């Protein structure tokens, strides 16, 4: 792997940019690997990357039925934050946030992580109580989150309307300054490049059609559209399709898959300097470096794998955005799209060993997995390499739905993705 640097740009400028190499190779699948990762999205590629860099396991294949980063990694709204309520969530989301800081240097790839701040608005006394509870819980866990008056919120985010006459007046806000955004595609590409350079095989257009198990129940490999590929360890990181893959291994999951839509406006000059969320008005918005307003909608109400959703869901979201920011009422929306998100009953992920020996699963990130990409990959690689969960992901078992030890983040995950 040739290092990207200012000297590389200068060198290539001198010779007509003919020396840039492919960012990752596309080898033919081998008969057998030490580890197979199902799904080449951000989480799967990060897992492969950390298997190689932290644990020295490089005989790894990442199988992808479509193209790399073409699922939810390329469909989310790129928000990064760690202001979740419970200790377990604080542990895993802040582990990720610490890795975001410095990720571009680590990968030698600009993931454009921008700690521009995530501001959550309060509109009534209940919002104040809930958000202040989050602020205090976060600070006890060493996570930055501070309470702002409406005037302070306006100073941090000038387009905010703090008039008392507004339909949903802003009566305060919680601000996580380390929160922000990153370039979603670059995260997948950066991890793919880093993993490929260390010998990981990334195999696109290779759909897993079955999971093979030995007489003792242990995993022996996977059937794919490109033939059988053997491995003693298989990690399923398939987002909306996780329960489909797990069913192939005979494991039924506490998951339901829903369409989640998002949309962007035409690009305009910088106007929204941070990420703004309102759980009450049910909307959130940020602005990409290209200038588009990035707006996330809610999920549709029914199980679907169609990667689309109802128009009324988008209309509802835009209604809410216009309530919060009347200046955007004449903005034109450029495009909208949908992704399929796998939602657990307690809105927390599952990163764990499974009842099947050699089968591991990293799923259930629901509507908000992008922010966790580095941390998720890091601890999932540990879980696979050691056949034992990292202390950070130890609470995120499948068994918690039997024991009742849930991590109920429905409030923190309701709107803000």
């Amino acid at each position, binding site marked *: 792997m040739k290092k990207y640097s200012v000297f590389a740009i200068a060198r290539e400028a001198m010779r007509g940019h003919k020396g840039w190499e492919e960012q990752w190779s596309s080898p033919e699948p081998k008969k057998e690997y030490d580890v197979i990762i199902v799904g080449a999205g951000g989480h799967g590629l990060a897992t492969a990357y950390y298997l190689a860099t932290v644990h020295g396991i490089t005989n790894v294949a990442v199988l992808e039925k479509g193209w790399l980063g073409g699922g939810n990694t390329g469909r989310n709204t790129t928000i990064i934050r760690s202001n979740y309520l419970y200790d377990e969530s604080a542990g895993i989301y802040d582990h990720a946030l610490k890795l975001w800081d410095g990720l571009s240097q680590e990968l030698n790839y600009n993931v454009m992580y921008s700690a521009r701040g995530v501001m959550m608005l309060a509109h009534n006394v209940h919002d104040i109580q809930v958000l202040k509870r989050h602020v205090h819980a976060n600070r006890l866990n060493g996570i930055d989150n501070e309470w702002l008056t409406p005037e302070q919120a306006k100073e941090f985010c000038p387009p905010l309307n703090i008039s008392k006459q507004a339909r949903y007046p802003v009566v305060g806000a919680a601000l996580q300054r380390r929160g922000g955004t990153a370039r979603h595609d670059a995260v997948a590409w950066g991890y793919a490049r880093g993993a490929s350079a260390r010998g990981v095989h990334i195999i696109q257009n290779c759909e897993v059609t079955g999971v093979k198990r030995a007489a003792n129940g242990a995993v022996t490999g996977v059937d794919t559209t490109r033939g059988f590929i053997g491995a003693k360890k298989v990690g399923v990181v398939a987002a909306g399709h996780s329960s489909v893959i797990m069913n192939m291994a005979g494991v039924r999951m506490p998951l339901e898959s829903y369409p989640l839509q998002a949309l962007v406006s035409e690009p305009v000059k910088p106007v929204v300097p941070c990420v703004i969320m309102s759980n009450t008005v049910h909307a959130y918005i940020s602005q990409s470096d290209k200038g588009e307003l990035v707006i996330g909608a809610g999920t549709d109400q029914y199980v679907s794998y169609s990667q689309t959703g109802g128009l*009324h869901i988008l209309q509802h979201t835009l209604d809410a955005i216009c309530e919060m920011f009347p200046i955007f009422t004449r903005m034109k929306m450029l495009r909208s799209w949908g992704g399929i998100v796998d939602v657990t009953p307690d809105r927390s992920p599952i990163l764990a060993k499974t009842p099947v020996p050699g089968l591991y699963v990293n799923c259930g990130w629901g509507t908000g997995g992008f922010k966790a990409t580095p941390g998720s990959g890091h601890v999932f690689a540990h879980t696979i390499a050691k056949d034992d969960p990292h202390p950070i992901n130890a609470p995120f078992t499948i068994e918690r739905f039997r024991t009742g030890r849930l991590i109920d983040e429905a409030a923190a995950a309701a709107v803000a993705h």
Partner: protein
Amino acid sequence: MLLIRCPYCEEERPELEFRNAGEAHIARSANIAGESDDDFEKFFFIRSNPKGVIHERWRHMHGCARFFNAVRDTVTDKFIMTYKAGEPKPAKLPGVAK
């Protein structure tokens, strides 16, 4: 937006009038306190989440307000049929092979 046929109103109405109420044909135990942890997990949390034909409950909230069941393809989002609550799972689906 989906167009959904309510089997009670016998009319196709827009999705906005309806609420999805999750997977159908999941029977609650008559003795819920006596359920084992395993069986309670299956009843309460585990879902089939199929890629393909799903049996699901809908409620015609802004219409007759009654619950009914539907069979739908989760890949195309097309409804195969709807039927009244309490009726058994249809053995044969119209227009579906096997």
